């Protein structure tokens, strides 16, 4: 009798857990002080930034968080801390489909260069979706779009000199 009551309750709980899909996130991993898995909610609480792009005549305003702010949050040296051996470090940005590009830490730090690379989660006010992924990088100052990684899932920090 007890079992008969318990089983439906367990089944309901299991169904509830299975029904709750984990919110999509971007993981920040590797040589970081604090590994992160940032959801859109998390990014929403960080300092927001936006960039405007022109995609063959269609204007798109992307919003999100500067990539250097994301890295700072993971404890990656930036600004005056980015010196010495840390300058031989890079970030491997990886997409859902396995696409990978890399950036050196120096080219992500606004104290080195004003590169304006955004980890975006909305376009023209709407959450990113479909082939853009839930998150993407947007590098409006780069002449080619190949490093503006769509469907971004991970930022892996690699320190070559320990």
């Amino acid at each position: 009798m007890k079992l008969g009551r318990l089983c439906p309750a367990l089944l309901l709980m299991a169904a509830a857990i299975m029904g709750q899909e984990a919110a999509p996130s971007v993981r920040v991993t590797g040589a970081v002080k604090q590994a992160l898995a940032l959801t859109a909610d998390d990014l929403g609480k960080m300092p927001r930034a936006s960039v405007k792009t022109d995609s063959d005549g269609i204007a798109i305003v992307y919003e999100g968080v500067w990539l250097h702010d994301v890295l700072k949050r993971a404890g990656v040296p930036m600004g005056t801390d980015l010196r010495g051996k840390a300058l031989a470090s890079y970030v491997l940005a990886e997409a859902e489909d396995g696409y990978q590009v890399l950036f050196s830490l120096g080219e992500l730090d606004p104290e080195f260069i004003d590169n304006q690379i955004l980890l975006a989660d909305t376009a023209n006010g709407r959450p990113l979706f479909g082939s853009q992924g839930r998150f993407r990088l947007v590098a409006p100052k780069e002449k080619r779009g190949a490093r503006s990684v769509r469907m971004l899932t991970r930022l892996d920090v690699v320190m070559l000199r320990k």
Partner: protein
Amino acid sequence: MIRRVASFALVAVMALSAADWEWNLPPGFPRPVVPPENQMSVAKAELGRYLFYDVRLSVNGQQSCASCHRQELAFTDGLARAKGTTGELHPRSSMSLVNVAYVPSLTWANPAMDKLEEQALVPMFGTDPVELGLKGQEERVLDSLRKAEVYQRLFSAAFPGDPRPIRMDTIANAIAAFQRTIISARSPYDRYRYGGDESALSEAAQRGEKLFFSGEKAGCSQCHGGWNFSGSVRYAGGQKVESEFHNTGLYDTYRAPNTGIQEHTGKAADSGKFRAPTLRNIAVTAPYMHDGSIATLSEVIEHYARGGRSSANPLKSSILHPLSLSPRDKMDLIEFLQSLTEEELLKDPRWSNPWR
């Protein structure tokens, strides 16, 4: 002084007639580039439509521009190679005119041909191959048009202030203006991507979109990128970009007359390079490739999944390589490509035959 006033009046009339044109594009969609010497007007586009469908513009009185550019087939002809008035086959397949106003180079393999006003004359007067076959027939054609009451009215409205408007240059201008109006921007995919309607695409098509834009998985967008799925586009206020041409590994050797842009550049490395056409409405424009040598979309995807059916062409684009696509991936890609078909465009009366 009189001449100055007259020319001022002419400019004013031209400005007035141009001012009535509205592109009526979805919000945020770029306008095409229009040459200053051939401004748009409702009357000119309407005249162009009549001419586009007029069989008087052929030596046999049976064909028109629309014979090889049929609206219901997104302005292609359903044939592997287009057939002219004398029965001669064109070496290449008839290209879609959809969004032709935006493409930097108009044809399959001539980087320099970028003016619709010039290109419109090629099928009319070209002899290699003969298409509409009008070489030497200019006066006869102009006479027949000048005698037609409908054209006296349409040309006067389209070229106000022009005392003798029925000429070959005005014919070409009107046809070009009409072609610029054939714009597709309202497919199910547009509604999904730009219109906020996520239900406009099936789940399979949504998976197909991700494959299409994935450089790792399928990589289609590397040549068919951008909102026109044709690579870079020209638009009002934008940079004057050039088309890219690709050798897609169809043949081990590309033979004349289909050597691609090599025919124009003279460079051996350009052999087999053809333009990546727009994929808008691609589901209704079979057969495919510059020579219509692939019958179905499914076979096109097989071609690219193999990294090109020719394995021996050293000039094959480095973008091509064998892909790891499952049968479901291939079906998803087709479903996505089908979402680029704008059914309304295929029957919209603005682009239909006015003579029926």
